[in-house]
Structures are given as structure tokens and as C-alpha cells.
């Protein structure tokens, strides 16, 4: 079930009404309701994949309990290894098996041999990357004794499957979400207002800005790329850049808004990434729940920055390349991750040589200068992830000029028509350092803002439910 389908508002209205009717004192019953709703929500795509969700839940619940009951370090290592192997095994089988087999076959054939390797040809379960990482965080944290194991199977099952963030994040940490599940939630007026804002703004970003930007980007990338020239490559990449951000952050906003309405608090996933001053700042703002997950569960265990400079650089690069692979079982994603790894390493190396912190103090002028200078590097990364072949990427790179063709002009005009609300809101958020800055408006102005966004969605929202881009991850 997609957030932008017509069935979802009806589904949520029913669930929310029952949730409120049960009341916070019966929060365990609320949890039961949310668990059933989450399985219905996920099973709406394909009920067969509910078994994977249940498997992941059962394995990690049992392993968590056993980790809590033993101090034998070898046994604890074996238990956490089992959890990692099972979870990553499922993820690998469904998401990466065919990719590695096909890549190996291509390599063998490039050497002049014939390869007949088997592939699984299975459908990728929606959101599997998200809930696998989420449930892994639980067993790893219990193993590290950062949190106690839970005895509440119902609560744990809800933690793994909670529908607002099940299929596209934010990737919640057990230490953050489980305590919220295992206690009564308080729904305050502030939370409701913030939740409603996030819902409206998230839907606006998805249905108006992202989907309209996709209408500009997709034809340029998919059908006509060999004819692109002048400013058209820039228009295409810019449109995709706007599309992917508004699509993904729109989903996160909707998820977080739904959570707030139910009294939960999810991780902030986006913190104005297109106002980043450099690579490290970008990853402190883009898909924060993933970048911090990779930091805590991959970068630090690899040694982080505790070793030599070379080791630190290698760790940074490996983590980013694997982060790219997490996004998709395809070379563009790995290249995109690797590209960002190189950017981070370069930034760090320059800082090490100059002896300055890359995230040091900046004046306003310095900050904006760096924001502007980082944009071309970011756009290049977006081109890498969107292009389906090296030929396409090379064509875009080599046919870029400053000629304003009619197609580029129309693309820019369409983008400007739908993107200006994003620019205004983000500048307000940036200047106040408050992502809820629009709620600082006087009461009537807030009402007018909400109404304007809803009316904008009614008229300009793209109708056919276009799947959220990040579902494929």
C-alpha cells in the first residue's frame, strides 16, 4: 500500500480512529492494533513476503533473548553472527544474488569464456533493506550491551514492522523506538500540529514537486538522451536531483508526520542536504538514519579514524561504496557510493594536510560560497546514480554547454514552476535552523499555508500513484 494511493488515507483513518479509541492507557492493545495494521499494510503489496518479515522478527527476538541470558563471549559472538548471517543472507538472496552472479558472468565472458550461471529471478520484497538494517541494529546493540533485550514479542514485532517507516525508513534504532513502543504515548497539540504539517508538506513534495520533476527528468534520461545537448543535460540532472530529494524526503516527512500523530518520534532523516557545504556536511544531512547506521555499525567496527590516515581513508571509502550497494544491486549505485567515498576522502585529506577541520566554523559568505561550490559535485553524483550506462553518463558530460535550447528552457521553466515553494520553505528553515519554521507563522497564515499546499496538490499533483523511488532500495 502506497502513501500516495487512495486506499491509504482510508486505511489510516480507520487505524487512527481505533488507535485513539483504545487510548494511551491500553497501549499494549494499541501495539496489537498497529502490528495488525502494519502486516495488512505490507501484505497489500504481496502477502508472501510477510513470511520474511515474520522470520526476521522471530530470529532476532530469540537471539536477543539468548544474548541477554549468557555472558559467554564466544556464544554471544556466535549468536550475533547468526543474526547477521540470517538477515544479510535473506537480503543477499533477494537483492544481491542475481547482481553478483550476472556481474561474475559478465566478467567471465569479458575474459573470453562462456558463462552459464544460475540466477534466482525473484521479486525484490519492498523495503527489505530498511527493515533488515533496523532489526540488525537490535541484535548488535544487545550484543554490545547498549540496550537490554526485550521480553515483549508483540512490541518487538511492531518495532520491526511499524508501517509508517517499514518500507522506506527512517531506519530506526531499537534503542530509540522500542522504549516508545513499550510505554504509553502522549499525543500533544504540538505533535499533532507538527504531524499535520509534515504530512501536508511531505505529500506536497512527493506529488507535486517530485513527480512533476520526474516528468521533466524521465523523458530526457530514458528516451532522448542521445540527442541531449546545450543546457539539456543540466536540466535532466537537476530535475532528477529535485525528484529524488523530494520523493525520498517527502516519504520521510509523511512517515514522521504519521508517527507524530500517534505520539511516536522518528529520527530526522533529512536536514536540508542541498544546503550542505561539503561532502561530510552532505552526509550529515542526507538520509541521516542510514549514514549514522553505517557509521555506528560499519565504520566504527572497521576501525573508524582510530588507525593511520590511510586506514581511515580506506574505511571511509569502503563504507561509502557499501552504502551505495545498499541502495541498489547495480553498478551505478556502487559507483555513486564510491564517488562520494572519494569526495569524503579528498575532503578529509585536504583537511589533514592543511590541519583544519572540514566542518569548521564558517561565516555566512563562506558558508554560501561552499554551498554553491559543492552543488556541481553533488550534481555529478546524481548523474552517476541516474545514468544507466557509461555511454549515457559520458554523453551528458561531453554534450553540456551553455546553449539554452527550447527543451532545456521548457525543463527549467517546469522545474521553476513547481520548485519555488521548496526554495522558500527551505530558506526559511535554513535561516531559523528550524525545520518547523513554517509553524512560526501567525495562526491564520498557517491555515492559509496549509490550504495553499493542499490546493496546490489538488491541481498540480501527479495523479497516477507513482511509486516512491526509494521503495526499490
Amino acid at each position, binding site marked *: 500500500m502506497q502513501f500516495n494511493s487512495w486506499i491509504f488515507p*482510508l486505511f489510516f483513518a480507520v487505524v487512527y480512529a481505533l488507535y485513539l479509541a483504545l487510548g494511551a492507557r491500553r497501549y499494549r492493545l494499541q501495539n496489537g492494533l498497529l502490528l495488525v495494521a502494519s502486516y495488512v499494510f505490507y501484505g497489500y503489496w504481496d502477502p508472501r513476503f510477510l513470511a520474511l518479515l515474520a522470520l526476521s522478527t522471530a530470529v532476532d527476538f530469540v537471539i536477543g533473548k539468548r544474548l541477554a541470558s549468557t555472558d559467554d563471549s564466544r556464544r554471544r559472538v556466535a549468536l550475533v553472527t547468526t543474526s547477521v548471517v540470517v538477515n544479510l543472507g535473506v537480503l543477499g538472496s533477494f537483492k544481491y544474488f542475481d547482481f553478483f552472479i550476472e556481474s561474475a558472468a559478465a566478467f567471465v565472458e569479458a575474459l573470453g569464456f562462456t558463462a552459464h550461471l544460475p540466477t534466482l529471478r525473484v521479486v525484490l520484497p519492498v523495503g527489505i533493506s530498511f527493515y533488515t538494517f533496523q532489526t540488525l541494529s537490535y541484535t548488535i546493540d544487545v550484543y554490545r550491551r547498549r540496550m537490554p533485550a526485550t521480553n515483549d514479542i508483540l512490541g518487538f514485532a511492531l518495532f520491526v514492522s511499524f508501517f509508517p517507516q517499514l518500507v522506506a525508513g527512517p531506519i530506526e534504532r531499537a534503542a530509540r523506538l522500542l522504549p516508545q513502543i513499550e510505554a504509553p504515548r502522549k499525543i500533544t497539540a504540538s505533535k499533532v500540529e507538527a504531524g499535520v504539517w509534515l504530512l501536508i508538506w511531505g505529500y506536497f513534495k512527493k506529488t507535486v514537486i517530485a513527480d512533476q520533476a520526474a516528468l521533466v527528468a524521465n523523458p530526457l534520461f530514458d528516451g532522448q538522451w542521445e540527442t541531449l545537448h546545450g543546457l539539456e543535460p543540466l536540466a535532466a540532472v537537476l530535475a532528477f536531483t529535485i525528484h529524488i530529494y523530494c520523493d525520498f524526503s517527502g516519504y520521510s516527512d509523511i512517515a514522521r508526520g504519521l508517527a507524530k500523530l500517534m505520539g511516536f518520534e522518528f529520527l530526522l532523516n533529512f536536514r*536540508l542536504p542541498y544546503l550542505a557545504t561539503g561532502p561530510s556536511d552532505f552526509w550529515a544531512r542526507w538520509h541521516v538514519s542510514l549514514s549514522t547506521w553505517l557509521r555506528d555499525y560499519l565504520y566504527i567496527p572497521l576501525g573508524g579514524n582510530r588507525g593511520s590516515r590511510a586506514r581511515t581513508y580506506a574505511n571511509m571509502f569502503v563504507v561509502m561504496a557499501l552504502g551505495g550497494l545498499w541502495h541498489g544491486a547495480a553498478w551505478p549505485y556502487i559507483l555513486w557510493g564510491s564517488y562520494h567515498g572519494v569526495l569524503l576522502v579528498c575532503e578529509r585529506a585536504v583537511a589533514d594536510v592543511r590541519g583544519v577541520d572540514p566542518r569548521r566554523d564558517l561565516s555566512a559568505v563562506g558558508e554560501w560560497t561552499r554551498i554553491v561550490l559543492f552543488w556541481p559535485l553533488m550534481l555529478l553524483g546524481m548523474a552517476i546514480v541516474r545514468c544507466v550506462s557509461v555511454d549515457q553518463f559520458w554523453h551528458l558530460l561531453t554534450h553540456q554547454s551553455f546553449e539554452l535550447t527550447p527543451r532545456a528552457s521548457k525543463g527549467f521553466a517546469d522545474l521553476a514552476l513547481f520548485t519555488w515553494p521548496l526554495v522558500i520553505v527551505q530558506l526559511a528553515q535554513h535561516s531559523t535552523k528550524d525545520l518547523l519554521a513554517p*509553524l512560526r507563522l501567525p495562526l491564520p497564515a498557517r491555515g492559509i499555508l496549509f490550504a495553499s499546499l493542499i490546493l496546490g496538490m489538488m491541481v498540480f499533483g501527479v495523479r497516477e500513484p507513482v511509486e516512491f523511488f526509494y521503495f526499490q532500495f
Partner: protein
Amino acid sequence: MATADERLPLERERAVSARSVAFVLAIAAALVLVVNAAAIRRSPAATRSFDGRTVAVKWDLASKGLASDGIVVIGDSSGNFAVSTDVLEAELGRPALNLCTYGRFEVLGAGWFLDRALETSEAPPSLVVVVLGSRTYALVADGFTLAQIPAPIGSWSDRVPGVGLGPLDAFQLVCARLFPLYAQHKGFELGLRKRRWTIDPSRLPILERGTSKLPFAYPDGVAPFAEKTVKELVSLEGPVPSVRDRRSLAGLVRDADARGYDVVFADGPVWSGLAARPEHAEFLARVHAYLDEICAGSERAHRLTGGLQTFEPDVMENPFHLTAPAAVRFSTELAQRLQAIGVPR
């Protein structure tokens, strides 16, 4: 100057009262409703788009009732452009009315126009001809689409064919009436972008008895549209015709038997290139098989045989739409085939 972490924005929830939140939401809801009401009042679909005008004019014609010995034609846009009431009247000697609109209304919506005509008539017509192109059987109408038919709220569930709309359809039907900016967004988006709020009816005239005259052909668009159609036909899941179409078609037959008029199912005109496609032929064969099945159980229902009437792109705007001269040819042949099976009686 600020450090990197200080530059990162946070979410700062401020203390607000429940009353102020309710006030904000009430303002927003009221504005949305008022703007929607004002938009449709100032710019009704009938003046803003040709689709809206066609639907409004046909509903108006249906609301004026039928001649008791007459012929009424219902169906999709293939019938809207292809069936000339002048030709039918000349060939069959009975008054004729063309209430065809658009395929996206499915058989269900086409039936609603007939139902409206029947409820405003003193006696049923002699003959109802249902003209549908293959593509219509592959379209799925949601509540928003059906809401474009100006039947009053509350009458939908009682209309013939009654097919029992689901809760989602019903919800969408109501939403469409409350929020025309959403339901008719394409017209409003175009209006806002081009700053053009009214159409010139003479560019797509609708004659007195409901025949729409397509004044131009668009040969280049025929083949691409046909490709799209083939994809739609082969991607349709479930039985052909769909469950809802089957119920609607059966409902039309039941109503004909109950009220005592003949109902004839006829294929709309089609581009010869599309007719030659095996996917199209197979799809239509399944439709015909079902029509034959329901007609076999009725004294009053017939399927018009004799093969598809095919045309070339130079007289078509898409694989189903005929220009006015070609419509005369289609209608003449249609009348002759009707006579051949002995209708109108």
C-alpha cells in the same frame, strides 16, 4: 559564525494549545472547500473543456426524455463521433439520439446516460444501440471519473446498471463533488498554465441530436495510440470483459427485457491496422463470446455481427475516432446491419 553541527537545522516543536491547532485546521479546511466551490462555480467543466461540455450536453439531452418509438445510442467516444443520428433517422425512419460520451466511463457510465433518459421519458425507446470500441473494455473507471457524470449524489447506487460501487468508489464520488479542483485537475491545471478558461464550442460541434462532429483527422497519431491500446488490452488482468463490465452489460440486457425494448451491442469503428493485430482480435473475441452468452438468454438482446468496420488513418483522429464524412459511412452500414436483424421493430 557557526560550527557545522550548529548549522544543522533541528525540529523545534513549540507549545501550542489544542484550540489553536483546531483553529488552523478549520481555516485550512474552510479555505479548501470555499476555493473548490468558487472554482467550479466560476469555471464549470462545460465551459472549460470539450470533455466537460460533451458530458453536460449529453446529460442535458438525456434529461429531455426519449421518443417512444425512437432509437437511442449509448457508448464511448467511438460512437460519439461515428454515429450520425441524421443517417440513422434517414435509413431507419425513426427519431434517433446519440448519448455516447467517453470510454473512461466504462459500460457502467454509458448505461447511466440511458438510465437518465429512461427516467425522464414517458415510454421506453424502441431500440437501444450500445456502441463500444475495444479499448473501453480495458479501461477502469474510479469514483472520480464516474463523478464527472452529473447524476445527483445519492442516485448512483440506484442507477441502472446497478453494480454495487465499493466504499472506495463511493468515497471518491463524494470527494469529487466536494473537491472539483482535484477531480478535474487537468482542466484547471491547463487553465492556470495557459490562462485560458473557456473553450470555443464551434471547434468541436455537437449537433442537436447528440452527434459530435470531428472536424479534422490526425493520421500521425493513429499508430502510436494503437500501440498504447494494445498494451492496455494485453495488460488487463482478470476476466474479459471485466467483472464490472460484465455486470453492467448484463444489467443493460435485464433492463431491456424488463422494459420491453431491443438492445443491440455493436463494435465501434476501428483502424484497420489495429483490427489486424492478433492481440486485438483475441481480446475482442473474448468480449464477443461474453456478449453472445448474455444475448442468448434474452429475447431482446442482440450482438451485431458482420465483422468490424475498419477505416484508414486519413479519416481518423485516433484508432477509434472518425471524422464526419467517415461517420456517415459507418452509420449507413450500422443502419443496414440493424435492419438485417429486424430492428427497430
